[in-house]
């Protein structure tokens, strides 16, 4: 397959931006659906309009759009057993972790700098590092200032829900149409094992009483948001032996109350982080356990599978954090927002996306038509744009797709240590990568060396760069038909 005519990643990384845009504009369009939107058939148009540029609320959008979090809300009103707010490490990705807290004024400057530099930026979120609704004054001041300068940026907040009912009306007034609530239980008995205390109505509550209040406030907040048409995503931390089975019940409750998405995330637990669970040896689930639970939840509230458990100061496309490029010391005192890059990027994406949708539905048809009962778990190295376009050795994560008689679906991602650093790979890392790819049949990437390829083969995982720069779904359908369809096995080495 040829290189794509429009390379999104070059659009965002080059210095001669205008020239690239000109090239992109002159390129034709491969499909008849050029320029059309990528709205899935089963989705209401009004909802699609709200999520189509939101990388967290739309799996499809996350290939094209980026979000940033500004860490303006350090104060929190509950304590979770998986959180320790004294700990911070620049190399670590974990919700609640930040390197520097910002004032609303500093946040505004940072957002403008990022908007100038990262054309994919579409969403500004406040996810703490404490609680955005409890630390409300700073959250609100930040949103108001940013909305004045960059009116088209989408605003969203993450909250534990305890203070949420107090601010739903203001959220609606400020056009915040995406809210994430972390809900780990609907049974206060389970909650008491997750939350040692909450601070509510001027006092500290503990045990079942604390969990009951939190639960009631979360349900109330969710219902209030649904009543106002604000889309909600529910984050649940999967804690084996504590709430893993219980999350099936949680899924039912939130679906009944209108939750748009349910995002089940694995507990991150390491004694070095100093959180209660880390210190008591509470383990997190492994990738296959997480997938098994997510599969059991299919049919309930719609699942989000592409969450990266980002830091509260993350910047960029999901899975490729650029936060360290935009620390306060790198941000000038005076910043002027320039909309041109973001506008140009959107124009290109609109066209590329229509093309991608057409390719995707053709690919799905191919898989279905293969008439095979088999399924294939595929790991894809990508840096965005919906294509197989990352080198194996450069990948920090793989996106996992499943091809089955039902079609092609995205099932999650697996993080890995980057294997290749400046020309050589290290065996220890490769062993870790292989371990992280447990259960995967085939790896797709833009390029892979003979040596890692052989080692992967030795571990029972095939890898190929034969589909480099193709759309992910196109590549997978070709693989699937080669494996199980009538056509002969062609492209696999």
């Amino acid at each position, binding site marked *: 397959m040829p290189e794509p005519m429009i390379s999104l990643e070059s659009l965002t990384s080059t210095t001669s931006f205008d020239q690239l845009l000109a090239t992109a504009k002159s390129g034709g369009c491969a499909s008849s659906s050029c320029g059309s939107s990528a709205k899935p058939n089963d989705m209401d148009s009004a909802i699609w309009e709200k999520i189509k540029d939101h990388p967290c609320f739309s799996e499809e959008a996350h290939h094209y759009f980026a979000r940033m979090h500004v860490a303006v809300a*350090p*104060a*929190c*009103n509950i*304590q979770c057993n998986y959180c320790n*707010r*004294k700990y911070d490490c620049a190399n670590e990705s974990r919700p609640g972790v930040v390197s520097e*807290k910002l004032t609303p004024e500093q946040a505004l400057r940072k957002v403008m700098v990022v908007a100038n530099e990262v054309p994919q930026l579409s969403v500004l979120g406040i996810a703490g590092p*404490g609680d955005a609704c*409890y*630390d409300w*004054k700073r959250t609100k001041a930040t949103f108001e200032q940013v909305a004045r300068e960059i009116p088209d940026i989408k605003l969203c907040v993450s909250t534990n829900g305890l203070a949420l009912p107090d601010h739903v009306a203001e959220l609606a007034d400020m056009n915040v149409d995406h809210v994430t609530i972390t809900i780990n239980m609907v049974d206060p008995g389970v909650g008491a094992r997750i939350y040692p205390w909450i*601070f509510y109505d*001027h*006092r*500290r509550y503990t045990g079942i009483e604390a969990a009951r209040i939190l639960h009631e406030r979360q349900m109330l907040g969710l219902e209030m948001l649904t009543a106002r048409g604000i889309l909600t995503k529910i984050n649940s931390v999967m804690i084996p032996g504590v709430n893993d089975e219980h999350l099936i019940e949680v899924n039912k409750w939130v679906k009944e109350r209108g939750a748009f998405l349910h995002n089940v995330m694995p507990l991150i637990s390491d004694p070095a982080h100093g959180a209660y669970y880390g210190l008591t040896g509470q383990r997190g689930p492994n990738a296959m356990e997480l997938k098994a639970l997510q599969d059991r939840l299919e049919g309930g509230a719609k699942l989000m599978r592409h969450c990266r458990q980002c830091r509260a100061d993350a910047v960029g496309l999901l899975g490729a954090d650029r936060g360290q490029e935009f620390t306060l010391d790198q941000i000038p005192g005076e910043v002027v927002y320039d909309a041109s890059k973001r506008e140009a990027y959107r124009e290109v994406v609109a066209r590329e996306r229509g093309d991608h949708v057409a390719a995707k539905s053709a690919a799905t048809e191919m898989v279905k038509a293969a008439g095979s009962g088999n399924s294939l778990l595929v790991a894809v190295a990508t840096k965005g744009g919906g294509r197989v376009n990352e080198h194996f050795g450069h990948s920090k994560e793989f996106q996992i797709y499943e091809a089955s008689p039902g079609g092609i679906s995205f099932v999650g991602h697996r993080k890995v240590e980057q294997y290749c650093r400046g020309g050589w790979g290290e065996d220890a890392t490769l062993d870790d990568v292989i371990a992280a790819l447990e259960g995967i049949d085939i790896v797709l990437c833009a390029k892979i060396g003979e040596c890692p390829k052989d080692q992967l083969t030795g571990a029972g995982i095939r890898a190929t760069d034969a589909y480099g720069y193709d759309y992910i779904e196109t590549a997978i359908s070709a693989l699937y038909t080669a494996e199980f369809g009538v056509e002969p096995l062609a492209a696999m080495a």
Partner: protein
Amino acid sequence: MAFKIIASQCTQCGACVFECPSGAIKFEGEIYVIDPDKCTECKEAFDTQQCASVCPVPKTCVPD
């Protein structure tokens, strides 16, 4: 009597500042401090000291 903040333990989250009914807590330079002349230990306002109740780090807001 007044409360004080053990600066070395403080995460600088600022929660105590907006819960204090007496406006006794300020960010001074690099640390949060309680003005002993303003702190009432929350007497007559609340049953428990607000700063100590909201603080995420045990034994950080303590009697002076």
